[in-house]
């Protein structure tokens, strides 16, 4: 065997081993979710169900009403993604292309504020929402997270590449600034807006700490909060918990698979220095 073939073999062996280890927890989750109650609690643990059943999923949706949490998570993530795209696109475009007073200083301020960890603001934000009557409401979950410094940066970077001539031509044609933003800039920035939308959707879908704090009424819980509560009450019901985990993880994974390009662009865009 040539040296090249040996290298290639070792390389692929390592990659496949890594892939197996990476996927094992997810595959086991999927497999255990089709087992009958108590089946997974054996030693050694079974890798596949003796006879696949949807009983756990039925239990989740029929008796435990997880469908409601699923709808809540979907609605919240969609609203957050839409609002975040509009708000951050507007600010990002303005910082990139429009001259207005204090633009530089405002932008430097945003840069500096990026180091503030979210936890610092949580307590006062909770008190603020409480005084606004927004505790235990969907608005309380998404409102604090709509404007994002990262999102503004992402759009600003992309919008800088929109040619000034195009904007000036529209101005000469008599288009108003808002009209230019809406019908020229937004369509041109579509790729980055999709990225931002996907990132926000998944961020909201996966978020746990904030909905846990804000939502007190279990009818309004998101999937993550419901799942954590189930994990407390049904700690012995491995198979049921795995079905719940599948219901929570699968939509996020599918969305990622379909929009992989946009998602990965967003992650790498943050790392590129100006």
């Amino acid at each position: 065997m040539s040296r090249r073939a040996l290298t290639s073999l070792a390389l692929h062996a390592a990659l496949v081993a890594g892939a197996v280890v990476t996927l094992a927890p997810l595959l086991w989750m999927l497999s255990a979710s089709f087992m009958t109650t108590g089946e997974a609690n054996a030693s050694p643990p079974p890798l596949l169900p003796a006879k696949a059943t949807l009983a756990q999923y039925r239990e989740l949706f029929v008796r435990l009403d997880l469908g409601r949490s699923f709808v809540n998570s979907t609605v919240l993530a969609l609203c957050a993604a839409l609002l975040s795209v509009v708000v951050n696109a507007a600010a990002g475009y303005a910082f990139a292309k429009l001259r207005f007073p204090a633009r530089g200083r405002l932008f430097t301020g945003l840069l500096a504020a990026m180091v503030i960890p979210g936890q610092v603001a949580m307590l006062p934000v909770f008190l603020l929402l409480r005084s606004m009557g927004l505790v235990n409401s969907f608005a309380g979950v998404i409102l604090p997270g709509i404007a994002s410094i990262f999102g503004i940066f992402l759009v600003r970077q992309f919008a800088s590449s929109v040619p000034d001539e195009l904007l000036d031509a529209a101005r000469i044609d008599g288009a108003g600034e808002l009209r230019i933003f809406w019908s020229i800039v937004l369509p041109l920035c579509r790729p980055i807006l999709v990225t931002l939308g996907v990132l926000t959707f998944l961020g909201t879908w996966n978020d746990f700490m904030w909905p846990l704090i804000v939502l007190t009424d279990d009818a309004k819980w998101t999937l993550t909060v419901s799942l954590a509560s189930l994990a407390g009450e049904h700690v012995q019901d491995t198979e049921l918990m795995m079905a719940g985990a599948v219901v929570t993880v699968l939509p996020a994974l599918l969305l990622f698979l379909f929009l992989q390009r946009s998602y990965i662009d967003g992650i790498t865009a943050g790392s590129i220095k100006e």
Partner: protein
Amino acid sequence: MRRLSSWRAREARAGLLLVAPGLLLLALFLALPVVAALLLSLTDFDLYAIGDPSTARLVGLGNYARLLHDPVFWKALGNTFFFVLVGGPLTVSLSLGSALLLNHRLVRFPGLFRTVYFAPVVTTLVAVAAVWRYLYHPRFGLLNAALGLLGIGPVDWLGDPQWAMPAIVLMAAWKNFGANMIIFVAGLKAIPESLYEAARIDGAGPLQRFRSITVPLLAPTFLFVGLTTTIGYFQLFAEPYVLSGGEGGPMNATLSVALFMYKQGFRWWSIGSAASIAFVLFAVILAATLLQRRLQRGGDA
């Protein structure tokens, strides 16, 4: 001339109008709360004060002083540092290792492997933490079954205070390495292939090429990844929350600073005290950021 200046005015108006929603939201939900948190951390704001804020009293730096004498806080800080100092390097090395493998020119289907390695990143933390909780089960868990095949005795991963934090580190490394990997791959792709060619012609071996081309050119990416991982890991919360049923046990072995803050603030409603914890966390993260920026500047020089 008049037309130009009226254009400018319109542009300025539009600019302010477009940044306004974002900046107002950030002011309301970030700037104002940070200032408020600082003030709260100087008071004994508690459950009664939520109903009637006038009952809160200024206690100066009392909350901070109490923290310094609270062994539970030190435990939480120690746990968090353990997570950052052990979990951070572990995650970043896995990321770099997998990126180097993926970027090798002999690899077939790099896109497929990339997708697989990245999958844990998009999964929901609460859900996969529930999965890992069963993988870590001392009797029925897959991990102990696998270790048993290697002749390693059963470990009570989440029940033994000694192993609980390493268990969280392991899960976090699995969940997060793919994100950094993507960034490393982008960094590696940006290194011109011609440099490697030239070095090969000059007779440099693979190790030497790695040391004198890859390492220096990847340094900025490395520091970016190190910084974001450090900042993220200092905010450890959901992993111990789910794996320990919201308590940070056993015996506070997995209590992180953020979880401690959550318990103080949102379970016991000692908001003043919780705010001081948040600010200590902020200070620690800020110090770590400045330290790494300085290292970066030292590296560039």
